[in-house]
């Protein structure tokens, strides 16, 4: 079960987002209806979540500004290369709420509005879960910094840079298959959908930039 505090934390964040905050602050029937949707969404996320939190150390070799992670993912990142040479430790973290959208839609009795709010809430809950996981991972290392390392594809047709599905797949393959509850489609979607994979650098105090 997912801790109620994480779901409540996610709900509080959502209620502060302009699109929700504006509707809630206007009061009246709209705000009441929205609160009811948020209540249902909280129940849904709490009922369906089967949280998984995995972390593994990841090997990284540097060659100048180039980095080869887990012998499969190539990155060019001068700052990361320098930090790795300064005793930085690289790890991959995987957090999943452990349920998929079709299960949530069924739980909501195919109510599109409940399902939509559930999706917003699940995303925030997942991020709250990942932040909590990162804090717990860093806790035994007072004074160390935990830095998120992006693994991005080249810009496609001038559009925003996205995580490279092939690199994500290579990182995911580092997790022991018997304990990893997550897979990735060829098109770059996690199954279950509410999953986040991150590459973190743990940097000792003397290694700080």
């Amino acid at each position: 079960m997912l801790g109620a505090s994480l779901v409540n934390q996610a709900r509080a964040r959502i209620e502060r987002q302009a699109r929700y905050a504006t509707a809630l602050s206007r009061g009246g029937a709209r705000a009441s209806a929205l609160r009811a949707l948020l209540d249902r969404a909280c129940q849904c996320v709490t009922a369906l979540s089967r949280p998984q939190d995995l972390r593994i150390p990841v090997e990284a070799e540097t060659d100048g500004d180039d980095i080869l992670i887990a012998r499969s993912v190539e990155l060019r990142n001068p700052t990361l290369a320098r930090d790795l040479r300064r005793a930085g430790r690289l790890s991959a973290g995987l957090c999943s709420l452990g349920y998929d959208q079709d299960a949530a839609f069924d739980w909501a009795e195919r109510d599109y509005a409940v399902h939509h709010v559930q999706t917003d809430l699940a995303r925030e809950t997942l991020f709250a879960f990942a932040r909590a996981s990162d804090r717990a991972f860093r806790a035994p290392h007072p004074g160390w910094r935990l830095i998120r390392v992006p693994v991005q594809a080249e810009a496609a047709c001038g559009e925003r840079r996205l995580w490279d599905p092939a690199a994500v797949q290579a990182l995911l393959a580092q997790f022991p298959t018997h304990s990893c509850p997550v897979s990735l489609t060829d098109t770059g979607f996690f199954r279950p959908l509410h999953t986040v994979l991150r590459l973190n650098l743990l940097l000792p105090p003397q290694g700080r930039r």
Partner: protein
Amino acid sequence: MLTEEDKDDLFAAICDGDRETVVSLVTRARDEGEDLARLVKDTMIPAMAEVGELFSAGEIFVPEMLVAARAMQGGIDIIEPVLAATDHEPLARVCIGSVKGDLHDIGKNLVVMMLKGAGFEVEDLGVDVSNEAFAAACDRGNSVVCLSALLTTTRPQMVKVIAHLKASGKSAKVVIGGAVVTQDFADIIGADAFGEDAPGAVRAVKRALGLAN
């Protein structure tokens, strides 16, 4: 029968997302023998159109559109079985799905709600929908196919759906939308229309069918 004031209240209740009032007024209209098709056409659909316009103008956000659409659906759920027993025809039959390989449904679902609120009959094919499933939906009488894609990795699948529909002789109009889709892309791949957001998708479907400019 509902008075003009009652109809104004129904309009306002949909806009405000007051599902309870919508259900109450529509139930009364049904029980008192109101012309429900006309109530939908003259009061309820214009209310959702107003909600769409407010959203497009930036005066309300998605959550407010959601509660309005849900209130509207509360009324439609009461009216639909009554209309189904008559020769009432929807504005058109539309199918919608996220293309093969795409597992996101949030944008698609918003479009489903807004299309229903505009008087269309909508067949939701879900996510990760194969080309063959879109073609089969055309065979079931859908005259518009709406395609959604979230990522650049799934956007090329839209090209394949259009090619498949053409190759299998389907005459349905194709409307596309999604986070990575633009009007230029729609023009390049030969889609009939592009919807920039959920209310925009409704306008795009109407344009594709020649129901609006």
